[in-house]
């Protein structure tokens, strides 16, 4: 009985220490401002994958992405009309908006923000 209680307590502690997102790749950003409401899975944006192909300034200067998680008001209609992700995901520079679940591949219910063992807290403050 106590053994089980102890093991349970140990598991509790473990669960508290290992939030399920702790293993995400460094720099992955989750976008979930509208996705859950819209009945789709949230969007995972992998920085590592894109920075192999583009310098930061392409997105954060040329294309106008604010460098702050959650600061960009991205709607699906924007993307289809060629703004935000749609400036590349347009079947010209990269595959287009019809491949929904490559972007909408996040776990439902997760909050927007940067994941993956980041060490600074909260949203960027500047």
């Amino acid at each position, binding site marked *: 009985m106590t053994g*089980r209680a*102890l*093991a*349970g307590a*140990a*598991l509790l*502690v*473990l*669960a508290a*220490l290992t*939030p*399920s*997102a*702790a*293993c*995400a*790749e*460094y*720099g*992955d950003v989750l976008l979930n401002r509208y996705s*859950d409401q819209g009945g789709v*899975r949230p969007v*995972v944006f992998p920085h*590592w*994958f894109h*920075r*192999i*192909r*583009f*310098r*930061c*300034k*392409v997105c*954060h*200067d040329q*294309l106008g992405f604010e*460098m702050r*998680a959650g600061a960009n008001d991205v709607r699906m209609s924007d993307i289809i009309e060629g703004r935000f992700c749609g400036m*590349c995901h347009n079947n010209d*520079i990269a595959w287009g908006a019809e491949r*929904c*679940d*490559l972007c*909408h*591949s*996040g*776990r*439902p219910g*997760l909050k927007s923000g*940067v*994941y*993956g063992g*980041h*060490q*600074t*807290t*909260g949203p*960027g*403050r*500047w």
Partner: protein
Amino acid sequence: MRTTSLTTKLLSLAALGVMAGPLQAQEGRQVYEQKCAVCHAAGLAGAPRPGNAADWGPRLRAGKASLYRNAIQGTMRGMPPKGGNPDLPEAAVRAAVDFMTATVAAASKPAARPEVARKPAAQTAPAASTAPVRQAVPPAAAPVAAPAIAAPEAAAVAAPAPVQVASASLALARPEPGSGAAAANAFNRLLRPPGKRNLPPAEDGIHDPAVDGTLQLQPPLAAFGAMPRSNAGNRVDWVKALAEGKIAPRWERDKADAAAVVMDLNIVREVKGSMPDVVYPHKQHTEWLDCSNCHPAIFVPQKGANQMSMAAILLGQGCGACHGRVAFPVSECRLCHSKKKDGVAAGSAAPQAEAHR
């Protein structure tokens, strides 16, 4: 007097309990059908199927409380918090768990042993297939494999590393409830063990392994293989990877060959106390960034004009706007604190920048 009030309380409690029973069962079925059945009905990605003793037996041995908690908080192996319904009251989640386990609870004890063996048998087959649906395996084959398999599985719990070794199917291996204490005393409590670095999307905790798209994404290690490694962040030395031509990120969205506009200007920030001074290199930054990414929103472009401190950086200000989020994290002290007080460069950043003058 006392006793009577106590008994009435007990009685009313009991009555409540009796009433709550069927009500909860009804709610549980409803919640299950609306929120949980998508995955649990077919056992998608290893979700235990309702009323299936083989699926629930070992889990029930961990106790109902553990099941409730995992259903509410989610698990790394694919159960999203509250099944992906953040607004669902916790009581409703518990009711759904009760519904799914109702017919199993009694039968769980005897079914538990051979259960251990069923999983590995199932694991080998679907490893390469794209559909994460778990295969049912005839229980007849089970008892033979049991002792051999149980051991590595327990080991996987003690040292979290092996979880990553194989693909999604291995991730279905569940910790044996008894080994919770061993897991709690794993060698590294806070340091992310090697097996949990650069996990493929299906196992990284933020991708939903039940989506086809997740399985089509590139696993980070497939890309990082040829790149110089580092000790933190993506565990890739991005500065070196770029300098050595291992990657060729575009400077313009639609031009493959536009050259970067790089400025080589080091700013030394003297640090009070014993830490080496900070050398801020414009070169490595302007390889990636435009002046307007930092000036003037993050830094006024004037030496010494900006207040900086580690506390502020850890809060995401100044250098912390990028370092600790996308660029290498704050743990790499020596990359920033690279200039010894006597003027000799201690880390790699300063000499590298100077060499390019």
